[in-house]
């Protein structure tokens, strides 16, 4: 069995002394792991950096074999972002979240294309934190845990929605949420598509909300935590915001 597809490199782990087991995110085949011969060598190391765009060809004797990849670098995103502390943290966090959340060998083309847009915009500090939050929101929806953000869970109103209920994953209006605001999650307007403008504080709020649902809906049932790279990103964004 074999296929060829575009992909984003999510991670690469050493295998033996010379090779690597690489996890890619492809539009048509989802998250897919395979062996890369010579993956620890000088030629392949720059290709196997997380976030890089590659052209991948996978071959395996059987469809459920580990198989091996032949890779060609298409978009060297990691190298372009290495000097930027926040962007690099964003790149690591996005790849870690994708690696932790996506089921193996299940196509999620929309999540892939949204991730490509996010990674391609990581050099624009005004844009990417909000893009990351929107990508995570889309990822939740793609995996069957979408949030209902168009009406209030308590009153049904579509006005003044500023909270999300951690229990129902639905929006809550300012009035209905007032008595419980300490327990509710923030809902910035840009996350509902009401406003194109998003400040860093808005993006941070949105990432707290999406992070909560990613952890409780996707990762905790599988006995996992949010990736450390994402926690580090939030820490850095909070410092920058202050």
């Amino acid at each position: 069995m074999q296929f060829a597809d575009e992909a984003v490199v999510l991670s690469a782990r050493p295998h033996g002394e010379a090779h690597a087991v690489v996890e890619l995110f492809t539009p048509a085949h989802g998250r897919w792991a395979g062996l890369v011969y010579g993956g620890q060598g000088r030629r392949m190391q720059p290709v196997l950096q997380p976030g890089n765009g590659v052209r991948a060809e996978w071959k395996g004797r059987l469809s459920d074999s580990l198989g091996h990849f032949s890779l060609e670098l298409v978009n060297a995103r990691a190298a372009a972002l290495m000097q930027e502390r926040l962007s690099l943290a964003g790149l690591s966090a996005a790849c870690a979240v994708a690696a932790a959340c996506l089921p193996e060998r299940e196509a999620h083309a929309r999540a892939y294309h949204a991730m490509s847009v996010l990674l391609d915009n990581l050099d624009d500090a005004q844009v990417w934190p909000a893009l990351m939050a929107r990508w995570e929101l889309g990822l939740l929806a793609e995996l069957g845990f979408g949030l209902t953000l168009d009406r209030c869970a308590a009153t049904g109103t579509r006005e003044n929605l500023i909270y999300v209920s951690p229990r129902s994953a639905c929006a809550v209006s300012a009035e209905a949420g007032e008595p419980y605001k300490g327990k509710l999650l923030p809902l910035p307007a840009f996350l509902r598509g009401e406003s194109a403008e998003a400040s860093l504080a808005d993006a941070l709020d949105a990432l707290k909300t999406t992070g909560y649902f990613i952890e409780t809906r996707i990762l905790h049932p599988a006995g996992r935590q949010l990736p450390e790279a994402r926690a580090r990103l939030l820490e850095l964004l909070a410092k920058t915001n202050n």
Partner: protein
Amino acid sequence: MPTGKGQIGPELQRLIDLLAKLPGLGPRSAKRAALYLLKKREPVMRPLAYALAEAADKVAACSTCGNWDSIDPCAICADAERDGSVICVVQDVGDLWALERAGAHRGLYHVLGGLLSPLDGVGPDDLNIGRLVERARAESVKEVVLALPATVDGQSTAHYLSEHLAGCAVALTRLSQGVPVGGELDYLDEGTLAAAMKTRRPA
């Protein structure tokens, strides 16, 4: 007829099994190495056994920089000729040796013992970072060079260290990236070329 485990004595088999654990050696090359050692018992095998035992007993990580040596502080930290105002931070002792081989750095070193890698579960507490911050706070230190790999993990670690060393009165520098000596542009990967263009300097 193949030589199976049953046809080799337990002492020799143990030697082969241990040799096969070394980097670059598999079971077959470990057998070749074991046979070579047995043939060269006096000139190679006994001195090697002695050297291994001595290194196991005496070589330890330097309490100052993390370099491997039989004395503490290590020969580099104890060398009064070296420039104590510059500390070069490296991932592993192999990187320290590479810089020494190049003769490019005459200051001191600090070996982190790895890189921050969330995927592999390596966090700040697993690295020799606390001691680096202590050293950087010393009045004599003027510069810390972050000589870490140009990988996502390497540069994430460099950014992390930059943050933690920001409170120290030292200049923080990092190795530049670009065209290697003897490198032709046509053969370079896109990432290196992009980094080289980004960090170009006046001719």
